[in-house]
């Protein structure tokens, strides 16, 4: 199967994602790994919480992967997203693209993460020691 989409409340594994996109026709694989930063906009993060409208999020992630495979002539693409509580350094998202040539793999990964952040119904709450905020919700 050329596309693999996962939303999980368990830690995401980069090696599994890589194995899913490995392909004898691929000369290059690009993998984007999001990680939880300790500081954001000058405030120290305690943890993040991700919530998804899972049924729809999986559909939107699949749309992104299908378009990427088609447009960049990929061998395979995988998009994994974590939900629930995440500590500093943990991985909210992994995107992997394999392609005969490396340029396509890079461009597809970048397209996928940029688009995921715009269209996929997943929400991130930043928890600080003195409050919390749903990211991008209000001005």
């Amino acid at each position, binding site marked *: 199967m050329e596309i693999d989409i996962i939303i999980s409340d368990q830690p995401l594994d980069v090696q599994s994602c890589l194995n899913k996109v490995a392909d004898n026709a691929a000369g290059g694989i690009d993998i984007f790994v999001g990680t939880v930063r300790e500081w954001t906009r000058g405030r120290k993060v305690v943890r993040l919480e991700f919530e*998804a409208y899972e049924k729809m999020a999986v559909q939107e992630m699949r749309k992104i992967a299908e378009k990427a495979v088609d447009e960049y002539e990929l061998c395979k693409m995988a998009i994994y997203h974590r939900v629930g509580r995440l500590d500093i350094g943990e991985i909210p998202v992994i995107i992997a693209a394999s392609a005969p040539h490396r340029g396509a793999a890079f461009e597809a990964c970048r397209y996928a993460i940029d688009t995921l*952040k715009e269209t996929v*119904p*997943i*929400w991130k709450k930043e928890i600080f020691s003195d409050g919390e905020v*749903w990211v991008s*919700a209000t001005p």
Partner: protein
Amino acid sequence: MNVNILAFGITKEILGSRSLNLDLPLDNGATVEDLREYLFEKYPELKKLNSLGIAQGTVYAQDDDRLNPAEEIALIPPVSGG
């Protein structure tokens, strides 16, 4: 018109629930935009959001799409995955 609404992220906190059954004072020709206006009136905090999308049947709806009470309707505040 009676609809079931799912609310996520900050909208879940504003509505006080992830899932809500609403009796709307709207007739069968009501649109997505009518629902949004109704919600803005009932939950004025929603007006402070950068955007408020509405999905119907797990697909982003347009403002002039007709509401279909048989479908799952969801409030989509600004997404922030990744």
